[in-house]
């Protein structure tokens, strides 16, 4: 099924050929689902569609999808001694198939996360419209609202915030920043990306089987009572978690073994540090939440009573969920902090302040994040837990503060080049600060008894996640835009949109603190009349927030199509990704870089950090890569330098690789 795209027939034929693997994946996925579900139903002797059939069908369907997209040729067939020949595609079609280039995978993640973000954001707009009035008027039932709200939260947390930066920038930039030519396990990498679309689809498709009403936390035993859509929540989250886990293995192995010569741990770029520690958290806690999801499935299809009121422990679910759930919030935020510091040093042309302190802070956060989970259960849990978990939670503010120590130390007396990414980082610092501070209010148990499960919490986590992580993601999208597209974006447009975003965001979410204190609990479609005025205001302002995001999207897309060439290093950055062409060639660097100093030193005495050729190995190229042609520039086919080898074929020698 290797498609030959070297000839150039009519566009439609080319499109069909380019989309071949994707179509095949969809077909095999559906077939897998049908076969799995049917066989199960028959074995069970049931005439109707059972929940077990849904689960088995999903699993076989997922297998079919993975094989169809290219897993058959790249993993399974070579494992059994067959050929490992696989066409990785060229141009834009590379993005629609199993491709092992970490840069392709990075962009696949970024675009997928962006689309999912848009979708979940639109759901939020529907929710806000419903919430504008006290009664139920837009949606037919409270159940519909609960379903929307649950899908919004689940997608945002499991498919956007832990995927956008970690999967997108992590894949694209970790190898570049450490001077490697790819990730350690490229096929594993492609496999993990292709788990994302089915995971997202499962969650989106849940309303087809009744949806799930429990929110993104899906507390038990409600989860066992819900419609069958609950199963798709478990399966979807499991699938997305699996993708994170495989990525984590890859990132850690890459960082440990693939660093360029001279790139000691003390010189490791801050963003890579945060990726590494995020991956450690993923590695340890994702399997644990996977167990919880499997238990949730068994509760429905195998008749177990883990979480039932009689015979089980309803609160066990909450412990299992938050043991992962809290580390997850730092999985979301660590890399965002990494981005802040990268951008602050480059845009301020000032030495990064307190590198060791902040890395130590990240380490402390990583360790401590595993011992605070019960602060989500203050109103539930036994008294004996309150003081210990309150204490650890308040103490985690100290290492978090070290991020600000470094950020402010770098910013102060620097030369602030107020570009769009810099502006977004500064905004992110301010909004995350407010969210962090409201976290301190929540961590205080007496105050939390009041605030928990109200809009105060909703305000808190939108401040930290949207204000912290989404802003930083946008900053990264701009900061690295020249690198991954080879183009420059429109600065003026970007800055206006950034201001609009900042204002719209605060206007939307700040009042929610007071709504919460005034007695508005979360996860409701209807409320008492006295809360209506504030809610109307929030709903209207939320539209501005949405508009601001759409403006950013327009800026990015339009600049990608028409922006002027950016050159390899428009910001004067010192990390290695700026030492190669924009976008980088398939193998990233012409020569293996040699690192001579750290990347964050500025000033007259600062040594040049990178890219000195290893003596006697290969000469350093004098010319930058040729610019992309306009035709490629117009599409998403960034990175396909004219001189690059076309379809990358796996050599039969390196078969049956990185999977177990």
């Amino acid at each position: 099924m290797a498609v030959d795209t070297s000839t150039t027939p009519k566009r439609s034929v080319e499109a069909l050929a380019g989309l071949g693997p994707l179509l095949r994946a969809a077909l095999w996925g559906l077939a897998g689902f049908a076969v799995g579900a049917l066989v199960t139903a028959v074995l069970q002797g049931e005439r109707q569609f059972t929940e077990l059939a849904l689960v088995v069908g999903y699993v076989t369907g997922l297998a079919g999808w993975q094989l169809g997209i290219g897993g058959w040729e790249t993993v399974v067939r070579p494992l059994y001694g067959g050929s490992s020949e696989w066409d990785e595609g060229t141009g834009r079609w590379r993005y629609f198939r199993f491709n092992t280039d970490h840069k392709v995978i990075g962009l696949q993640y970024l675009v997928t996360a962006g689309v999912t973000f848009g979708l979940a954001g639109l759901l939020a707009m529907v929710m806000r419209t419903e919430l504008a009035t006290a009664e139920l008027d837009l949606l037919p039932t409270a159940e519909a609202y609960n379903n929307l709200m649950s899908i919004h939260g689940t997608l945002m947390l499991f498919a956007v915030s832990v995927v956008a930066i970690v999967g997108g920038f992590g894949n694209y930039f970790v190898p570049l920043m450490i001077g490697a030519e790819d990730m350690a396990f490229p096929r594993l990498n492609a496999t993990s990306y292709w788990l994302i679309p089915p995971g997202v689809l499962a969650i989106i498709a849940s309303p087809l089987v009744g949806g799930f009403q429990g929110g993104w936390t899906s507390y038990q035993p409600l989860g066992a009572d819900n419609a069958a859509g609950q199963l798709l929540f478990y399966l979807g989250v499991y699938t997305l978690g699996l993708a994170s886990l495989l990525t984590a293995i890859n990132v850690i192995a890459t960082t440990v073994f693939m660093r360029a010569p001279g790139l000691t741990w003390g010189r490791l770029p801050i963003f890579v540090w945060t990726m590494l520690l995020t991956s450690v958290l993923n590695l340890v806690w994702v399997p644990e939440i996977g167990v919880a999801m499997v238990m949730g499935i068994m509760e429905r299809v195998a008749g177990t009573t883990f979480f039932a009121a009689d015979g089980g422990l309803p609160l066990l679910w909450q412990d299992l969920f938050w043991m992962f759930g809290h580390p997850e919030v730092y999985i979301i935020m660590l890399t965002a902090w990494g981005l802040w510091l990268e951008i602050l040093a480059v845009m301020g042309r000032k030495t990064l302040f307190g590198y060791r302190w902040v890395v130590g802070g990240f380490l402390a956060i990583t360790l401590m994040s595993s011992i605070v989970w019960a602060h989500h259960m203050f109103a539930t849990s036994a008294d004996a837990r309150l003081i210990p978990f309150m204490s650890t939670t308040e103490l985690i503010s100290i290492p978090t503060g070290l991020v600000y120590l470094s950020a402010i130390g770098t910013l102060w007396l620097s030369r602030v080049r107020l570009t769009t990414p810099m502006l977004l980082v500064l905004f992110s610092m301010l909004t995350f600060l407010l969210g962090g501070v409201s976290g301190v209010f929540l961590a205080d148990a007496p105050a939390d008894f009041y605030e928990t499960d109200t809009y105060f919490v909703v305000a808190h986590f939108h401040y930290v996640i949207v204000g912290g992580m989404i802003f930083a993601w946008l900053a990264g999208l701009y900061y690295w835009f020249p690198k991954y597209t080879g183009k420059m974006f429109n600065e003026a447009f970007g800055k206006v949109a950034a201001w609009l975003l900042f204002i719209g965001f605060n206007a939307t979410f700040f009042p929610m603190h007071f709504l919460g204190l005034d007695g508005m609990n979360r996860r409701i479609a209807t409320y008492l009349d006295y809360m209506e005025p504030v809610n109307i205001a929030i709903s209207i302002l939320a539209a501005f927030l949405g508009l601001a995001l759409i403006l950013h999207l327009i800026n990015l897309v339009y600049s990608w199509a028409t922006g002027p060439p950016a050159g390899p290093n428009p910001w004067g950055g010192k990390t290695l990704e700026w030492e190669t062409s924009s976008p980088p060639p398939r193998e990233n660097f012409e020569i293996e870089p040699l690192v001579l100093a750290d990347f964050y030193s500025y000033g007259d005495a600062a040594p040049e950090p990178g890219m000195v050729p290893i003596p006697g190995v290969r000469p350093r190229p004098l010319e930058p890569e040729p610019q992309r042609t306009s035709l490629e520039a117009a599409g998403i086919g960034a990175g396909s330098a004219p001189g690059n080898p076309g379809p990358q074929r796996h050599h039969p020698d390196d078969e049956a690789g990185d999977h177990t």
Partner: protein
Amino acid sequence: MTEQPGRPNARRHLLVAGLSWVVLTVAGVIGVRVWAADSFPFLAAEQGAVADDAILFLFYLVIPVFMFVLVAVVYAMIRFRARPDDLTDSAVQVRTHRGYTMTWLGTTTALAVLVIIHPGVTGLMEIWDARDEPDPLVVEVTAQQWEWSFTYPEQGVENQPELVLPVDQPVRFVITSEDVIHSFWIPAFRLKQDAVPGATTELHITPDRIGDIGTSEMLRVQCAELCGIGHADMAAEVSIVTAAEFDEWVTEVGGGQ
């Protein structure tokens, strides 16, 4: 902004920013006091004051921290601006700074420890003190999808859909659920307690203001844990009445000693 920030100006920058920080902190504290004076929602329980006080105290602690970062960022944004294409390095290059780092660490650690002790542990102690109140009125709260019922075992009053409490009388709520997890919350009392199936939890409250939903919408029972379709509507009426009125109500609904 052509000024080259360098050593000579460093002191002035610190001074101006420091002054702005002081001014903004004072303004913030005053602002919170003004807000708290009349905007804290209707409160009707002794123990609820613990939560309000904690919030107020936390405000005083975090405002200086918040303003510090705010000033640093906004000041840098305005005063240290350089042209985007200007690649000159900053004249000041510091890798670490003992004084600044140690002050930072010391202050944040002190703040975090203080927060644990003061509104934290002390607040919990105060809330737990209510358990030792003598002769509490016992109210059994049962949550089920999607309604509340209240039983007063000592008064022989069973399964009431509304909650009636005598003012200034310590109450011991014994809370459980028939099906999924709910959360027992009277906003005017502040404190929540989850209702967990198969277990009982307790909440000790002394209501200290007479009123009902007509007095303030905060005086209502509201389920605060997502429990399915009817979650939003899972509310019940609350009346806080005088002791005499309470006895009257008890006989009215068929109770008696």
